[in-house]
């Protein structure tokens, strides 16, 4: 009975996050569900507290990163990136795509996939429109790289942040092991997008970048981001948790940009932070009542190449069914038992896998199909074809690259 209740609460959390009903906000369902599971005794309050203690620093880390990225936006970093991309493209769509790749891969790696999806992609669309060239290849590139270029650092994706603590790796070693898979993922995206949009990218844009002024570099923001990154690497050497480095970076941006306090709070997305905490507790309950055993039965153990490949594929499948956040919470405890190699292979799966669908998971896709039954908005066929060309190849090649890195680094 406990198993069923825990799974029903987990399903309710995911349904609320996917369907976003007005009367039941996802953060409310997740927090309420967590409290309910403790009240009815399915999860002991000690276990709930342990789950919160484990997630607390990660959620604080996330909040600091969101505030840091918002500070970069206020400082004009993304506008400057847009102007820089336009200038660097010299009016040629092929060169613009190269600029977009640099900007999207860099933004994702350093400021997380949220920054690429929410802050950079609209700028890329506007830049392509102003250059009077087809925006499709460039927007698709942003959309894909937000996922596949999020392999590099613990800060590149919330899934990485969650796994970082469990992996026991230092910030620098995490980045060192994931550098090769990251480059391989970006390389595969480049080859597939270049070939798929060869016609669009082959000609020169019809408008020379005449009205483009040289962008004003947001030097302070760039310095803060650079110092924060350096701080992440150094923090593990001197024994400071990287969350404090992120907090210092966020504070520096807030002091400099002086946004209204309510804007700082809304940039940190408190509702999302509550959702992550609530979901973490609910998954802990479900894991204790059978879910962990089930995952343990499916997931291979060990860090030989076939085991790592299977971990990546299973993780990609779960991420595609449910979305990568719950997939990470569910698989992580089992993968962590096999060591850091398995945790990183899981990250290859949950980060690269969601490119198969344009909404990140089948659950979201199905819901959208139900709500927008006659909606012709997104060219699903084309996006899915690009996903089929990149995802299986990336899962295989990135995991092999990870395995190589594990032998060497």
């Amino acid at each position, binding site marked *: 009975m406990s198993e069923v209740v825990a799974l029903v609460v987990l399903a309710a959390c995911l349904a609320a996050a996917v369907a976003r009903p007005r009367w039941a906000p996802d953060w409310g369902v997740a927090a309420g569900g967590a409290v309910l599971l403790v009240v009815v005794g399915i999860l002991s309050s000690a276990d709930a507290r342990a789950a919160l203690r484990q997630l607390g620093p990660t959620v604080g880390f996330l909040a600091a990163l969101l505030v840091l990225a918002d500070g970069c936006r206020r400082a004009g970093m993304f506008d400057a990136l847009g102007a820089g991309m336009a200038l660097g493209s010299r009016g040629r769509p092929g060169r613009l795509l190269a600029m977009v790749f640099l900007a999207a891969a860099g933004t994702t790696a350093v400021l997380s996939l949220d920054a690429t999806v929410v*802050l950079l992609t609209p700028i890329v669309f506007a830049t392509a429109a*102003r250059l009077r060239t087809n925006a499709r290849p460039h927007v698709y590139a*942003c959309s894909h790289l937000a996922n596949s270029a999020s392999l590099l650092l613990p800060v590149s994706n919330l899934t990485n942040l969650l796994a970082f603590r469990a992996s026991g790796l230092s910030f620098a070693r995490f980045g060192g092991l994931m550098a090769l898979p990251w480059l391989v993922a970006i390389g595969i995206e480049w080859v597939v997008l270049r070939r798929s949009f060869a*016609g669009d990218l082959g000609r020169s844009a*019809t408008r020379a970048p005449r009205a483009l002024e040289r962008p004003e570099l947001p030097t302070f923001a760039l310095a803060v981001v650079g110092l924060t990154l350096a701080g992440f690497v150094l923090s593990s050497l001197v024994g400071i948790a990287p969350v404090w480095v992120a907090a210092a970076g966020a504070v520096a941006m807030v002091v400099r940009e002086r946004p209204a306090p309510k804007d700082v709070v*809304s940039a940190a997305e408190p509702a999302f932070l509550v959702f992550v905490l609530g979901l973490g507790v609910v998954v802990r309950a479900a894991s204790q009542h059978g879910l962990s055993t089930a995952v343990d039965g499916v997931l291979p153990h060990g860090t030989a190449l076939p085991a790592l490949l299977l971990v990546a594929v299973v993780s990609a499948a779960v991420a595609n069914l449910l*979305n990568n956040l719950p997939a990470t919470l569910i698989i992580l405890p089992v993968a962590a038992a096999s060591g850091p190699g398995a945790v990183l292979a899981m990250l290859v799966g949950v980060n690269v896998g969601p490119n198969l669908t344009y909404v990140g998971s089948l659950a979201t896709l199905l819901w959208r199909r139900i709500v927008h039954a006659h909606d012709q*908005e997104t060219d699903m066929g084309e996006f899915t074809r690009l996903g089929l060309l990149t995802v299986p190849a990336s899962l295989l090649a990135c995991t092999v690259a990870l395995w190589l890195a594990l032998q060497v680094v």
Partner: protein
Amino acid sequence: MRAVVWISEDTWEACVDHARSLVPGDAEVTLLHVAPTDVEDLASHGGARLLGRHPPPPSGPPLRAIADEEAQALLGEALKRFGQSAHTVARRGKIEREVLDACAGADLLVLARDGEPRLGPKSLGPRTRFALDHAPCQVLLVWPEQPPGLDTIPLPPQLR
């Protein structure tokens, strides 16, 4: 005679030039631009793909305003290059469907190859291919630059 000239970002100049030289002077010409809403949607509502996140809307003018402004500017330039009287129409939606819709009752559609610059099926992108295959009228299909030579056709296998 009613002619629709499809104005798209990368190939519009060739369409306008050929329409001017090949379409009869007394024809009623419409210069048509379609903004693809799916790309705009993916760019502006990407946050909806991130589970549990509710990011504030992006700052700056909405992408739709930028797309509309650029479409009008492009149609203005196309009209100037055409140099004769013509209607201009800006539509939004799924590109190939909107183009075909705009061809209802027209006698001619002028469109350009938008694929690879060599002879063969890849010289047409998927949307142009759809419009060409389903056009309910005569079609004038032009090359955006000088047409490539016959030597760009791959040799038949037995001659390789």
